[in-house]
Structures are given as structure tokens and as C-alpha cells.
């Protein structure tokens, strides 16, 4: 009787043979590669309870300027986190991107009753 390992190896070998093969990227997509400007955003999300007792989700992004040093970026992220942990949420649409941290701090921050532990797939009202 063949060992479990042998059967397992054979099955994996067959599976690898049946796996679909890689396809090449279309040429019209490859041609633009060199002229790409990198863009990145810091994203903050979580759950909170409003003053009315409704459960809502905040989710916003902030564009990271390439001029910022690591220390500056870290301090800006810490300030934003502390504001959120102090039960203040910026006025925004779900998934909104702020062009800079300056714009984020200029928006109106709303007080909320409670910040909740994040749970994926939770049902919430928008």
C-alpha cells in the first residue's frame, strides 16, 4: 500500500500539471510602464457609535506627500489616530480621499459617543 506522503505528492504533481499557465501581458499595457508617478495614501477605518446610538463606519484616506520625512509622516498619523481615539471623526463621505493632511485637519471634526472594536463583515448603517 503506498504511503500517505507518496499519494499526497502524486496528487500535488497532478494538480500542478492541471494548473492554468501564465499568459503574457498585452503589449499595449507594457508600453506605458516607464512613465509612472507613484501615488500612495494612508487609510484609516473603523466603527463608531453616534450620539444617536447608531452604529456607523468611518473610512477615509489621506494622500502621502513625497516631500514628507518619516518622522513628519509618523507624527501626522499619530495625531490623526489620537483624534479618532479621542472620539472625534472628520466629516467625510465613505471612502473619501483627502488631498493632504492639512485638508484633513481643516475639515470639521464631529464628536461621537464611542469608538468600537473593528469587526469585518459587520452590518452597519451609513
Amino acid at each position, binding site marked *: 500500500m503506498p504511503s500517505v506522503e507518496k499519494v*499526497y505528492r502524486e*496528487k500535488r504533481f497532478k494538480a500542478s500539471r492541471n*494548473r*492554468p499557465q*501564465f*499568459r*503574457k*501581458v*498585452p503589449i499595449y*499595457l*507594457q508600453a*506605458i*510602464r516607464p512613465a*509612472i*508617478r*507613484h*501615488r*500612495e*495614501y*494612508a*487609510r*484609516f*477605518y*473603523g*466603527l*463608531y457609535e453616534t450620539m444617536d446610538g447608531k452604529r456607523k463606519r468611518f473610512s477615509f*484616506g489621506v494622500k502621502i506627500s513625497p516631500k514628507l520625512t*518619516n518622522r513628519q*509622516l*509618523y507624527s501626522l*498619523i*499619530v495625531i490623526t*489616530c489620537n483624534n*479618532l*481615539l479621542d472620539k472625534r471623526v472628520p466629516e467625510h463621505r465613505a*471612502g473619501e480621499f483627502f488631498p493632504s493632511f492639512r485638508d484633513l485637519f481643516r475639515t470639521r471634526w464631529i464628536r461621537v459617543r*464611542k*469608538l*468600537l*472594536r*473593528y*469587526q*469585518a463583515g459587520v452590518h452597519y448603517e451609513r
Partner: protein
Amino acid sequence: MSGNVVLAYTSDTLLMLDCDLKREDEVIEFAKEYAKFHDLGSVAVFKTSDTPQIDLFGNRLGNYAIIFGKPLTWDEINWHVKEAYRLGMVNKSFLAIREFGSITIRVSSKNDKIPPPKPIYYFRNGDNRGVMRFTKFWVLCRKLGMKKHAEKEDISDKRPRKIP
């Protein structure tokens, strides 16, 4: 009990794939082969969370994120996401990100149970700009978003002091 904030890294020029419920060796092999075949630069694999699920052979499954080093256009990223779905590495739910125009990968802990992602594999293959940027952000933010440290400090301050 206080709540928490989740921090994530979003980019519309980097190819980042979220491979949920996969074996570790399968993800690593795919990342390496795919980066070599398409010339996508260096590649890093992060373990985002553990799952209690196992496959038919008893292998433990986990959730992983693959970050490729070369910046690409959004059209090409779209194509790669579709291709990864065809190859069975990405869930159908991940395909929905093509409508949003950017890919987001979590860098901090989700809640008490799910810790921040851990790097498990790095393959050196040329351009590593994307991997370095993501790693820099991960280093900055992996411990943020929780109120634990502040609470601990408060408790330590409130302890009664010994009177000599």
C-alpha cells in the same frame, strides 16, 4: 473597553494581491514565479491573519498579501488582478476593488485577536520601490491604532505611592 482604529496602505500604482485561504508554500511559489514571468521586480509576502481552516490534506490555510516592487498603471494592475483570479489565487470579492481604482492592504492590528501582518518571504528580483514603500509604512504604523499603551500609563500613574 475602548475601540480601535485600523490603518492601511492604499496605492493605485502598486500591484498588491490579497490571497485568502491559501497554503503558505503555494502563495510563495506563485509570488516568485509570477514576478519572474512578468518582470514585476522584487516581491514580498506578508501573512495578514491565521485561520482555523485546513485543506483536504490537512494543511493549515492562512490569509496572505503579496506586494510587487514595480509601479504599474491602473489598467495593467486591473489585468493582473483578473489574471490572478483566473489562476485561482484571488477571491471573487477581491475583484471588486477594480471598481474603486486603488488597492488597500491593512498594516496595523484589526482588533485584539488579529495582529498586524508579518513578513514571511522576500524575493530579490530587481526593482524594489513598491516593496520598500509598503515596508516603510508598515514599520511606521504597525503598532498604532490601539489605546492600550495610553491606558497602561494611566493605570501606572494612579497607583498609590509608598510613603517613606
